[in-house]
C-alpha cells in the first residue's frame, strides 16, 4: 500500500489554512501499532460549510437508540421534519408477541406551528401524550426534543413527570436538541442516561432467569442481525435477557440488571450503559464483535471463558465446528472473487472497525477506515479516556453518576477473577480500531465529501463501504458501493450466516455485468 505523505499533503493544500490545520489532526497513516499508540483527533466540532456525513444529537437519541424500542410510543416534540425523517429509515427490525404492542410503524410528532414557537409548545405536548395513551395504550412513552424546543424553553421533563403521574406509565423525556454536542454521539449519551435512569432496574426480577443470562448491548438488528446472533447464542445455551436496543422493548430492558454479563457490540453508542450497569449492578461487560467469522468465534470463546463452564465451552466449540463446516465451502467461492481487492470503509461509530475482519476473511484489505461520530477511545482504546480533554461541547452533555444499587447490586465475578480474565479477554475494555489496522492504511475521522473524492482517487479502492449520502458518489466513479448502515436492504450480515450473506452481496457487486456498460461503444471505438 503506497500512500505517500506528499499525496496526503496535496489534499491538505487544497484547504483554506484554518480548515487544513483542523483536518490534519483527524487523519493519520497507521504506523507500527506495536510500538506506540497513535493519536487522532475526534469528537470535535464539524467545520461549518464542510459537507459532512454527520447527523445530530436528535438522530443519535431518537433515531438510533430509542427508536428500536418497540413497545413504547416515541413522541417527537418539534416541527414535523425531525420525527418524519427518523420514521422507518433505520431498518431496526422487530417482532412483537402482541402486534398491538409494536409501535415501530408509527411516527408521532407534535408538529409544532409558528404559534407554538411564539407561545410555547408545552400544552401541545401534554395533549399529545394524552392522545397517545388513549389511542395506543403503550407500556411507556418517550419524548424527544428537537432544536426549537430547547430554545423556547419548553420544560419537557416537567410535562413528562406530570403526565406520568396522570397516566401511571413511565414517560421519559430526552433533551436531545439537534445542536447539542458535535454529532449523533451526544444523542447516544443522552439516550443512554435516560434509559438507565428511567427503565433499567425497574423490573420485578432480582435473580437471573437462567445460568447463562446475558444482555446484548449496542446491537440494532439492522436487517435482522441480532436474530442471527440470537440463533447462535440460543444454540449454545445462552439466555438473552435484554437486547439493546434492536428488537428491544421496555419490558425486557427493565430487567436488564439481572444478567450475568453484558455484551457490547457497538461500543460508541452504548458504552455509557455498559459502564453504568457495571457500577450500579456489578455486571461486567465484554466487548464482542459478531461481524466476521473469526470475530464471531473469538467473541463466543471469550464468553465461554468468562463463564468458565466446561459444558458451555464444549457446546461453544461444537457449535462453531458445525457452523464452519457449513459456511466454509461457500465462503471459498466468494473469496475467489474478492481475493486481492481493497475496501474503503467509513461508517458509524464501530462498524468501520468491525467489518475489517470480515473483509480480511474475504481476501480484501481495508485501505481506509473511519467513523462519523466516534470519540478518541473508539480509535485509540479505552486507556486514553483519562487523557481526553473535555471541551465545551461535551461538557454540555450531562454525565450520569451512578452508585451501586443498595438492593440490586450483586458482584457477578470476584475482582480477582475479573483481573485474571482481563488478561485474556476484552472484559470492561476495548482496544480501539487503530490497533488492528495494517501499517500504511489510513484512518480518517469525520471524513467529508471532499476527502472522500480525493481519497478514492488516491487509493483507488475496489469497494466503497459507507452510507446512503456518499454511496452514489462512489458508484458514479464506477466503484461498487455497499451501504453499511442499511446494508442496501439486504442482510443480516452478522454471525456465521451473515458473513456468507455479506460475502455474497459484495461478490455480486464485483461481478455484476452492469459495470461493463459504462463506456458507450462509440467511445471505445471512435470513428
Amino acid at each position: 500500500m503506497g500512500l505517500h505523505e506528499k499525496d496526503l499533503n496535496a489534499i491538505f493544500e487544497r484547504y483554506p489554512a484554518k480548515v487544513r490545520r483542523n483536518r490534519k489532526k483527524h487523519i493519520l497513516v497507521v504506523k507500527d501499532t506495536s510500538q506506540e499508540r497513535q493519536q487522532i483527533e475526534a469528537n470535535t466540532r464539524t467545520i461549518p460549510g464542510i459537507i459532512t456525513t454527520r447527523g445530530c444529537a436528535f438522530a443519535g437519541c431518537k433515531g438510533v437508540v430509542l427508536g428500536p424500542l418497540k413497545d413504547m410510543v416515541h413522541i417527537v416534540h418539534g416541527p414535523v421534519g425531525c420525527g418524519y425523517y427518523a420514521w422507518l429509515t433505520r431498518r431496526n427490525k422487530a417482532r412483537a408477541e402482541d402486534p398491538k404492542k409494536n409501535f415501530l410503524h408509527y411516527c408521532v410528532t407534535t408538529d409544532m406551528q409558528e404559534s407554538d414557537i411564539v407561545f410555547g409548545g408545552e400544552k401541545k405536548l401534554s395533549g399529545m401524550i394524552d392522545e397517545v395513551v388513549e389511542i395506543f395504550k403503550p407500556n411507556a412513552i418517550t419524548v424527544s426534543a428537537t432544536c426549537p424546543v430547547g430554545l423556547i424553553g419548553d420544560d419537557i421533563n416537567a410535562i413528562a413527570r406530570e403526565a406520568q403521574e396522570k397516566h401511571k406509565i413511565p414517560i421519559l423525556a430526552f433533551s436531545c436538541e439537534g445542536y447539542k454536542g458535535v454529532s449523533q454521539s451526544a444523542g447516544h449519551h443522552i439516550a443512554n442516561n435516560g434509559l438507565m435512569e428511567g427503565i433499567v432496574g425497574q423490573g420485578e426480577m432480582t435473580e437471573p432467569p437462567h445460568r447463562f443470562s446475558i444482555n446484548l448491548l449496542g446491537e440494532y438488528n439492522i436487517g435482522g442481525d441480532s436474530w442471527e446472533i440470537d440463533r447462535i447464542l440460543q444454540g449454545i445455551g445462552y439466555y438473552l435477557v435484554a437486547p439493546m436496543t434492536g428488537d428491544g422493548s421496555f419490558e425486557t430492558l427493565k430487567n436488564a440488571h439481572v444478567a450475568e454479563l453484558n455484551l457490547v457490540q457497538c461500543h460508541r453508542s452504548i458504552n455509557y450503559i455498559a459502564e453504568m450497569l457495571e457500577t450500579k449492578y456489578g455486571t461486567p461487560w465484554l466487548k464482542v464483535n459478531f461481524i466476521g467469522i473469526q470475530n464471531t468465534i473469538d467473541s463466543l470463546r471469550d464468553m465461554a471463558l468468562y463463564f468458565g463452564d466446561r459444558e458451555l465451552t464444549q457446546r461453544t466449540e461444537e457449535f462453531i465446528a458445525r457452523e464452519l463446516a457449513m459456511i466454509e465451502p461457500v465462503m471459498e467461492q466468494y473469496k475467489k472473487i474478492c481475493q486481492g481487492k481493497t475496501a474503503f470503509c467509513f461508517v458509524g461509530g464501530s462498524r468501520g472497525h468491525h467489518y475489517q475482519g470480515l473483509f480480511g476473511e474475504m481476501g480484501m484489505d481495508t485501505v481506509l477506515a473511519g467513523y462519523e461520530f466516534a470519540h478518541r477511545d473508539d480509535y485509540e482504546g479505552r486507556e486514553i479516556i483519562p487523557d481526553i480533554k473535555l471541551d465545551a461541547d461535551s461538557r454540555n452533555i450531562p454525565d450520569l453518576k451512578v452508585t451501586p444499587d443498595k438492593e440490586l447490586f450483586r458482584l457477578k465475578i470476584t475482582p480477582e477473577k475479573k483481573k485474571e480474565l482481563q488478561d485474556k479477554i476484552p472484559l470492561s475494555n476495548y482496544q480501539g480500531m487503530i490497533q488492528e489496522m495494517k501499517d500504511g492504511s489510513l484512518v480518517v475521522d469525520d471524513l467529508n465529501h471532499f476527502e472522500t473524492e480525493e481519497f478514492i482517487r488516491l487509493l483507488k479502492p475496489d469497494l466503497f463501504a459507507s452510507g446512503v449520502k456518499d454511496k452514489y458518489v462512489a458508484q458514479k466513479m464506477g466503484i461498487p458501493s455497499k451501504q453499511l448502515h442499511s446494508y442496501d436492504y439486504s442482510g443480516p450480515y452478522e454471525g456465521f450466516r451473515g458473513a456468507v450473506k455479506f460475502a455474497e452481496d459484495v461478490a455480486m457487486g464485483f461481478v455484476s455485468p452492469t459495470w461493463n456498460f459504462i463506456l458507450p461503444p462509440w467511445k471505445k471505438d471512435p470513428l
Partner: protein
Amino acid sequence: MLDSTPKEMIQRKVGLINPAKTCQPIGAMYAALGIYRCLPHSHGSQGCCSYHRSHLTRHFRDPIMASSSSFTEGASVFGGGANLKTSIKNVFEIYDPDIMAVHTTCLTETIGDDIPSILSTAEVPEGKRVIYASTPSYVGSHITGFSNMTTGMVNCLVEPGEKEKKEQVNVLPGFVNPGDMREIKRMLKELGIKFIMFPDTTGVVDSPMTGRYQMFPRGGARVKDIQDSGSSKFTIALGFFASSEAAFLLDRKCSVPPVVLRTPVGIKATDEFLMTLRNRFIQDIPYELEEERGQLVDIMTDTHFHFHGRKVALFGDPDMLTAMTEFLLSLGMIPAYVLTGSPGALFEKEINTMLKAAGVEGKVRAAGDLFELHQWIKNGPVDLLIGNTYGKYIARAEDIPFVRLGFPVMDRSVHSYLPVVGYRGAMRLIEMISGALLDRADRDAAEEDFELVM
C-alpha cells in the same frame, strides 16, 4: 402492520400520527439543486442537512450535495452569523460552486438569524452568488419550502428587465421529478416555444453514469436564464402551492404576468397547459402532440371498464393531488378520500368543487395525516390507494392495491426518470393504475375464473 390503528374515529386535537408532509428545508434544498452549479446550504444544525440529503438520495438514488452551517450549542445562543460566514468562505474555496442557495431551519428561524444582513457583510468571491430563502420548519410543509426557494431565486437573481418583452415564457414546474421536468421541456420544444424553466433538476438528480463523478453535473437552470426571466412575455406557474408565489413576485418585480395552472397531470390539465401556450403564442399544436393525445384518449376509452366506479384513496402533495383527482374523475373513478399533509383551505375548496361538479362524494382533508386516512379506509374500504412509499403500510394492513406516486418513493427505482405529466405521463399513470388493479383481480380470481384476456 399498523395493528394499533383503531376503526373507531378518535377526536384528535394536536399533533400528527404518520405525517403526510415534511418540513420546508427539504423542499428548499430540492429546488436549489435545480440551478446549475449550485450548492444548497442548510443554515442550522447539521442533522437537518444530513436528513434531507439522505431522504432525497433515497428518492432519486443519485448523489445529493448540500452543506450545513453545523451549529453547536454556542452558535444557537450567540447567533449563527459567524457560522454562515465561515461556511461561505469554506464552500467557495473547497467546492467552488457558482452559486450557494442558503435556506434556514427551525433553529435559525427561532433564534432570529437575519440572513440578508449576515450576507451583506459576508465575503463572497468575485463572480459568485449567494441567494437565500427563509424556510421555517414550523410553517407549511416541504412544498412551502420549495415555493420559498423558487421565490428566493426571483428575489435574489432577477432584476427588473427591459419594458420590451421577449417572445419567451417562464415555466415554473413545481415540486415534480426530473422526469416530469424533462417531459414539460419536451412538450415546449415540440411547440417550438422559447422558454426558461426554473428550478430545473434534470441532469442534476438524474445524472448519467459516466464513470466520472461530477459534483456539479451538467443539468440545472442557468443563473443568466433565471435573471433573464424578468424579460419574458409571461410566466406559467404549474401548481398553485409550489409555484404561484414566485410567479406573483416576478410580476410585481418585473411586470411579467403570471398564469397559474394545474400541474399538467392527466388529460385536462395537459390540455390547459397546451391551450395556454397556443393562445398566448397564437400558434397551432403540432401533430406529434395531437397524436399523443389521441393515443391517450384511445387508451382511456379502451380501458374505461377497468376504472369506472372504482373507489380510490389518494394522498400526497396538494398540486399533484388536485391534478390527479381531476384525472381520476376523467377516468370515471371515484376519489373517495383525498388527503394532503400540507395546510391549505384552498386545497379543500378546489377538490370539493371538483367532486361536486362530478357528482361524486368524497372526503377531503388538508393538514391531515396518514393515521386519519387509514381510519377512513377502515370505515369505508377503497379499491385502490395512491400515494408515496409510506402508503405501503396501509396498503398491506388493509390489503389494497397500491400505486406509488409523489414524494418520496424510496422503495422503487426508475420512477424519478419517467414522467407522470403530459399525455405520455397520463398513459404511464393508466398503466400503473390498471396494472395494480388487474394484478389484484388475477391474484384474487378463483381458478375457474382466471382468464387469459382481461
